[in-house]
Every structure is written in structure tokens, then in C-alpha cells.
């Protein structure tokens, strides 16, 4: 059905993660619909894509650790915890909003 090559999405950063991405809180971008394995791009792919192509800070382990988003970062798909949507395996849809929030500890 869908023959489009790319999926337009919005990616947002909050809780200090924006500092890793040149202080940008909101990115509008397009990602490939299918990745190299001919499977649909999912959150795991997006995280690696962001880390490889858009993260400006050299400290990659502030965002990705052991192949996944580091502990202390919540991933929210369209305003809901990714655990409600299938976590890393969630296949990204056109217009999705993916929000990465670092927990805060100050008070």
C-alpha cells in the first residue's frame, strides 16, 4: 500500500537531552520507511539514526548504552510511554511524535 520511501516524524527532547542535540528541543525529520534489513523502521532504528546522524555531543553514552536508550530516559510515543506501544519494536508511523525525556532529580 504505502510506497513512500520516507516517513515524516517529529522528534522532541526534554529534561536536558536537548543539550546533546545542539540545544534543539524539537526536530522535524524524515526517516527511511524500511531499513537495510528490509524491515520497517522502528524505534530501535530511530535511536541509532539520531545517535549517528543528529547528535552533536561526542558523549554517545549519554543517549545510548548497551545498544538501547540509556537508563533514565523515557521514550514517549504520541504522548504515551513506549512500554504501552511495544518499546523498541514499535514501527514508526507517518506523523508520529517521539519524545525523549531525561528524568530530573533536582529539587
Amino acid at each position, binding site marked *: 500500500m504505502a510506497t513512500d520511501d520516507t516517513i515524516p516524524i517529529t522528534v522532541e527532547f526534554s529534561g536536558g537531552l536537548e543539550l546533546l542535540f545542539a540545544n534543539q528541543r524539537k526536530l522535524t525529520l524524515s526517516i527511511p520507511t524500511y531499513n537495510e534489513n528490509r524491515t520497517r523502521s522502528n524505534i530501535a532504528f530511530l535511536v541509532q539514526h539520531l545517535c549517528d546522524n543528529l547528535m552533536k555531543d561526542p558523549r554517545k553514552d549519554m543517549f545510548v548504552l548497551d545498544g538501547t536508550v540509556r537508563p*533514565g530516559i523515557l521514550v514517549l510515543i504520541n504522548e504515551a510511554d513506549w512500554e504501552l506501544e511495544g518499546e523498541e519494536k514499535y514501527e514508526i508511523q507517518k506523523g508520529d511524535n517521539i519524545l525523549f525525556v*531525561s528524568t530530573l532529580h533536582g*529539587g
Partner: protein
Amino acid sequence: SPSRKWPLDKTEYKRYGRQLIMPEIGLQGQLCLKEASVLIVGVGGLGCPAAAYLVGSGVGTVGLIDGDIVEESNLHRQVLHSTASVGMSKVDSARVALNSLNPNVRLVAHPSRLTSESAISILQDYDVVLDCTDTPASRYLISDACVLLGKPLVSASALRTDGQLMVLNYPPRPVGDPSGGPCYRCVFPKPPPAESVVSCGDGGILGPVVGVMGVLQALEAIKLLTRQTNEVFRHVEPKPADPPTLLIFSAYSNPMFRSIRLRNRRQKCAACSAQSSVTPEALKSGSLDYVQFCGTISPINAL
């Protein structure tokens, strides 16, 4: 008996009149507040406004726990304290201010840091706990103790221009009951790498940002404590508890507030699931070392 006829005294009707006339509170709600006890862990940027509004509202007993003393650099956001109280313990300083706001509230002072050994015995006397602390270690400790004791936890945090708020372990069902609200470990099973943790001292904090979060903690506590009133006395159908939500605040974003739907209890949570490894004995014996669990790092390397 006369105490039945006039369950509040005359000055209380006057003082709380603007709440009493609201259907969400009413006389029954005010009595719930008066009989309730709330523990505020941390009397800093979150704890100061939270305490002020809880004491203002007439919560019967408010406990304050903090081991720090007031410093000048606290005052831009910790608005219960004053320039004259620099050097005093935060708990004592807050107690003076809160007592002059509302002498009807019993204030309980715990002028020391919450430890794994003391947590259960301190928290067990309270109905609701507010996490107003500033380290991951204290956040895991407080959540674990609340789960073990079956207490709802209103947790907030703030840094720079951002804030976060969650009501955890609500409803506070027993350990192993999946219908209870998620705990801090359900949401964050592993602590963040120590080098990613930034304190307000290192990262900075805008006063009203942490202030808003603290006031909202007071609000959530009042809602929890008077919830029954609404159901029982207003003949409103008992609604299920709101689904677990993370409120995200960002002072320079538009919109400033977002509500995010959180997960339910985690099937393998180390604290609240049937497979829990966190026990009262482990906590009391100090065998759970929260500081080591969360790691430490010299501030210079922190993000």
C-alpha cells in the same frame, strides 16, 4: 456530643471557608485533611511551596525531613526560608514560617537525612509522602519504602527550566497486586549512569520552575486525601483512579505543560511485583545500598 455537632471550631470555619464551600472539599473533605498526615521529604525548592500550601489548607500533621542547613544560594527559590535563617537547619527554619502561617497544624521535625535504616519507621506514621529530594538514591529509597508500606507517593523534580511530576503507587495496592499504581522502579528500573545526573547546584534552577512543581505536589496530595469525600459524600460514582501520568513542564517550550500516559506496574519490578527483592528487612538492615546502586561521580564530569 458538641464535638459531633461542630466538628471544626469557629476559627477553622473562618480560616478554611473558601475551601469548605467547594463541593470538591466541603466539610467532610476538610475533616479528612484535618485527620491526615503528610510527610515532606526535603525542605528545599519543592518542599517549601508544597509545605506552605499543605499547612495553609489545614492538613492535621505535616512532617518535615531534611538534614541540610539554609544557605544564601537557596533563597531565590526556597521561599519559606529567610535571610535571617541562613545557617539554621532547613527543618527548623520552615517550622517557624509554617507555624506563623497556620498554628493549627501539628508540625513534626525530622532534622536529618532519610536513610535506608530509618525510612520505614519514619514513613509509616504518614498517610501520603511527598518526594521533594534531589538525588536518584533518595528517590529509589522513598519509592521502595512507600511500596512496602502501601503509601501513595507524590514525586516531583526540577532542573534548570524543566520540571516533572508523578503520582506513584496509587492506588497503593499490596506488593504483587498488578492493579496498584506503578512505583518509581516500574518507570525507571535502572538508575541513570551517575555521570548523567545533574543537581540544581551544578545545573542551575529557575525559582518559579521548581516552585510550580512544589505547589502542584501540594495539590495532588490534597486531591488524594479528599478523594473519598467526593465519592462518599457527593454521591458521585467512584471513578477509577486517574491513569498514571507524568506531567512535564518546560518553561521555554510552547506548550509549557504536557501530560504523558505512563505504564502500569512492571511485571518484574524489583519493588512492587510478586518477584520483588526489596523487603522491609533488607531496607532496615541497610543491605540495600542506594548510594552505591546509583553510583557516584565527581561533579566536574556530570552532564
